[in-house]
C-alpha cells in the first residue's frame, strides 16, 4: 500500500510541482501570483481541448502552457504596469480563468481524448519499490524530474538567474547596472504561468484524463503556499509537492483497502500541514523571502 500511496504521490504531485516551480521563479523576481490556480485551470482546459481536436497530447501541452502564460500576462500587466495590488489582482485573474474555462470548456465535458500513456523506463522501471514509484509514469512526470534541477541551475548558476533574484531583492541595484528589473519580472511571471499551464495540462491529459469545471480544486493555491513553505527553493518544492500528492492519493488508497479514515480529514490534511509548516518555520521563512516580496506582504490594500 505504501508503494501505491507514494506512486500516487508522485503522479498527483506533478501538476502541483510544475505550478510551484513556475511560481518560484515569479516570486523570486518579487511578484506573487494567486492567479496560478487560474493558469493551471486554463492550461488544463486548453490542453484537453487541443488534445481532443488534434489527437496529440503533446500539442495539448503546448496549448496548455500558452494558455497559462497568457493568463499570467494579464496578472503581470496589472501588477507591474498598473501597480495594482498583487494579491487582489491574483484572485481576480483566477476568476477570469474560472469563467473562461467554464465558458469554453462545456463542450469538452465528457468528451474522450487519447491521453498521455504511462511509459515505463526500461530497466529502471523494474527496480523493486523505486521502479513503480518513479519510473512508470507518463512523460510529463519525467519532464518534471528534469525541470526541478534545471530551474535550480537557472536561478543559482546562470546570469539570468542573478537578474531574476536581483529583481526580487533590490531592483534598484539592477537598474544601477543597466538591467531592467521590470522586464525581468514580466518574463518571470509569464514563465510561471507557462509552467502552471503545463501542470494543468498534466492534470487533464494524464492524471484525471478528463475535463470538468474547477478541476484544479485549489492545487494552485497549494502550489503558492508550497513555494513559501519551500523557502523559494526549487528543489525543496519537490518534496512538498509529492507530499501533497500523497495526501491526495491517500484517501482513495485507504478506501480501496476498506480502512475507514475520514475522507475529509484527509482532504484537509495538505492545507493543515501547510499552515502548520508556515507557522513553525514562520519567522525563518519570512526572513528567507526575497526582499521585494516582503514588501508586498507588508503593503496594505488600497483605501
Amino acid at each position, binding site marked *: 500500500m505504501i508503494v501505491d500511496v507514494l506512486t500516487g504521490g508522485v503522479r498527483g504531485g506533478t501538476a502541483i510541482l510544475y505550478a510551484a516551480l513556475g511560481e518560484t521563479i515569479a516570486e523570486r523576481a518579487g511578484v506573487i501570483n494567486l492567479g496560478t490556480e487560474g493558469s493551471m485551470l486554463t492550461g488544463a482546459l486548453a490542453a484537453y481541448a487541443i488534445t481532443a481536436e488534434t489527437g496529440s497530447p503533446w500539442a495539448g501541452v503546448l496549448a496548455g502552457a500558452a494558455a497559462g502564460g497568457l493568463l499570467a500576462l494579464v496578472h503581470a500587466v496589472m501588477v507591474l504596469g498598473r501597480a495594482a495590488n498583487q494579491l487582489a489582482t491574483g484572485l481576480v485573474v483566477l476568476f477570469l480563468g474560472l469563467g473562461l474555462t467554464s465558458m469554453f470548456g462545456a463542450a469538452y465535458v465528457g468528451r474522450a481524448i487519447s491521453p498521455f500513456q504511462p511509459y515505463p523506463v526500461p530497466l529502471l522501471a523494474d527496480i523493486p519499490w523505486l521502479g513503480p514509484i518513479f519510473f512508470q509514469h507518463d512523460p510529463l512526470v519525467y519532464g518534471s524530474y528534469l525541470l526541478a534541477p534545471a530551474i535550480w541551475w537557472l536561478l543559482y*548558476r*546562470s*546570469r*539570468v*538567474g*542573478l*537578474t531574476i*533574484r*536581483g529583481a526580487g*531583492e*533590490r531592483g*534598484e*541595484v*539592477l537598474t*544601477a*547596472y*543597466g*538591467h531592467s528589473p521590470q522586464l525581468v519580472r514580466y518574463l518571470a511571471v509569464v514563465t510561471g504561468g507557462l509552467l502552471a499551464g503545463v501542470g494543468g495540462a498534466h492534470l487533464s491529459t494524464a492524471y484525471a484524463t478528463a475535463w470538468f469545471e474547477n478541476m484544479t480544486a485549489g492545487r494552485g493555491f497549494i502550489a503558492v503556499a508550497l513555494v513559501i513553505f519551500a523557502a523559494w527553493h526549487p528543489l525543496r518544492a519537490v518534496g512538498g509537492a509529492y507530499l501533497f500528492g500523497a495526501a491526495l492519493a491517500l484517501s482513495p488508497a485507504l478506501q480501496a483497502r476498506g480502512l475507514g479514515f475520514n475522507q475529509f480529514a484527509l482532504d484537509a490534511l495538505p492545507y493543515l500541514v501547510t499552515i502548520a509548516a508556515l507557522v513553525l518555520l514562520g519567522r525563518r521563512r519570512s526572513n528567507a523571502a*526575497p*526582499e521585494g516580496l516582503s514588501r508586498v506582504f507588508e503593503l496594505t490594500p488600497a*483605501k
Partner: protein
Amino acid sequence: MTAVAAPVDSATALLSVRNLTCRFGAVVANDGVDFDVAPGEVHAVLGENGAGKSTLMKLIYGVYRPDAGELRVDGVPAAIDSPAAARAAGIGMVFQDLRLIPAFTVTENIALALPGRGVRFQRRALSARIAEQARRYGLPVHPDALVAHLSIGERQRVEILKVLMAGARLLILDEPTSVLAPQEVDALFAAVRALRANGLSIVIITHKLAEARAIADRVTVLRGGRVVLRNADPAAHTDAELVEAMVGRSVPGLAGHRQPPGPQVAPVVRLRGVDVTGDRGAPALRAIDLDLRPGELVGVAGVAGSGQRELCEVILGERRVAAGSVHIRDVAVHGRPRQALAAGAVGVPEDPLTDAVVPGLTVTEHLALADLGAVRRGLGIDWRAVAADAARREERAGLRMAAGDRVVAELSGGNVQRVLLTRALGAPATVVVAAYPSRGLDIATTRRTQELLLEQRDAGAAVLVVSEDLDELLAISDRIAVLHNGELAGIVTPATTDRYAIGQLMLGGDQAAGGSGSAAAGGSDLR
C-alpha cells in the same frame, strides 16, 4: 578666500573639472567648482553637510548633469551623462548606501555589476579573481560569504572590489568612514594606500579632519557650493585653518538674555547611560547622559548620522534603549510612544512622509491624532472639538496651514511640515522634540517656527531641537549638545562659543589630539 597651492595642469590630471555649476531649483549646489585629481594620488574633499561635496561627486559620476562647466578625463573633454558612461571612462563610485544585495554572496554581487558573457555565470572563476584582487589590494573578503552576514566595513570592501573589477582608475569614496570603527578605518586606509601604489587615484569625501590628514595627499575644501581651498597640502595647514575653511567665521552669537535654568531645577527629561542600537545593528548612541530642564531649549548639533535621530526617537518612546534609562517626569519610557505622549511629549519627525503622514487622511484628521483621548465623545470623535482645537492651534502657531479638509498626502513638502508643526507646537507641551523643524521651509516660516519653539520654552516646556544649521542653533539654544559618532562630544552655551568651536566638536577635531572619550570638552557640570 580661495587658496590655491600647486596648481595641477589639466592635461596631466586624471580628472579635471572646471567651473562646474549645478542648480536644483533655487538652490545652487555647486557654484563654479574647479577640481583636479592627479594620477596615483589620494585627494580628500572636505566640507560640512550641504557644502556640495556629494553633488560634485554625483556630477562626476554621471548621476546629475551640470548646468555649466566642463569635465576632462586624461586631458580630453568627456561627456559623462550616465553612470555607465562614467564607468566606461574609468570612474567608479562607492556610495554611502552601498549598492549591494544582502541576500547575494560577494561573488554574485560583483557578477551583477560586471558586463557578462554567456549563459553561465562563472562562479568559481570569478571567485578566484575576486580572492586574488582582494589579496592584492589588502581588502580581505570571502567571495562566497553572504553580504548580509558581513559587517559594514566588509561590505565596503566588496563595493570597492566591485568598482575595481569594473575597471575603475579613479575611485570616489563617499564618506566611507562615517560608519566604520577605528580599526576598520585603519584597514580601509591601508587598502587605499595599496590602491595608490598601484597607480589608482582615490577621491575621499569626508568631514573628518583627522582622517583627511592621515590619508590624503591633497585636500580641497568646499563651502556653500564653492571651492574655498583648492589642492592644498594638508601638512601645510593647521587644524584651525582647515576648520575655518569648512565652517567659516561668524560674529559670535549674542549672549542670551536669559539664563538657562540651573542644575538645581529638576529635569523633566533624564537620560542615563543610554545605549541605542541603530537600524542596521550598529550602535547609534553610546553612554548618553543628558538632562532637559523645563524652560530651556537644548540644541543638538552634529554631522548627519551622529545619532541625533535615535536620540529623538528614544525620548519619544519610538525606539527602545539597549542599555540605560529614559525618564520623562519620573515616568520611565520603555519604547512605547504612548508613554511618552501621556507624559506630555510631542515630536516633530525628521521624515514626515514615512513617519507621520497618513495617506487618505485630511489635515483635520491628522490634527485629531495630537490627542485622541481628549476629543473622544462616547464611542465617536467630537470632530467639532477637533476643529476648534485645530483652529486654536493654528492661531497659536500662526503658520498658515492648509484647509482642514485637504488630504495631507497631496500637499507639498513645506505644507506638510506646516501641518505637523502646527500640530506639535500649537498647544502647550511638557517636552518638545523637534528634528530638523525648518527643513524645506521658506525664511518667514522658518523664523516663525523658531519663535514657536522659543514660546514653548518660555511657557515652561523642555525643548530639544536637532538642526544642521549652526546659526539657527546658536540663535535659539540655551545650551547646545554636540554629538559625534553617537557620543556626547560636549555641551556648550552660545554665549561662550561660536561656530568654529562647535565645528571642532562636531568634526572630532579634538579627538585628533589623541583623546578619546565623550563629554570631553563640555565638562560634566554642564550636563
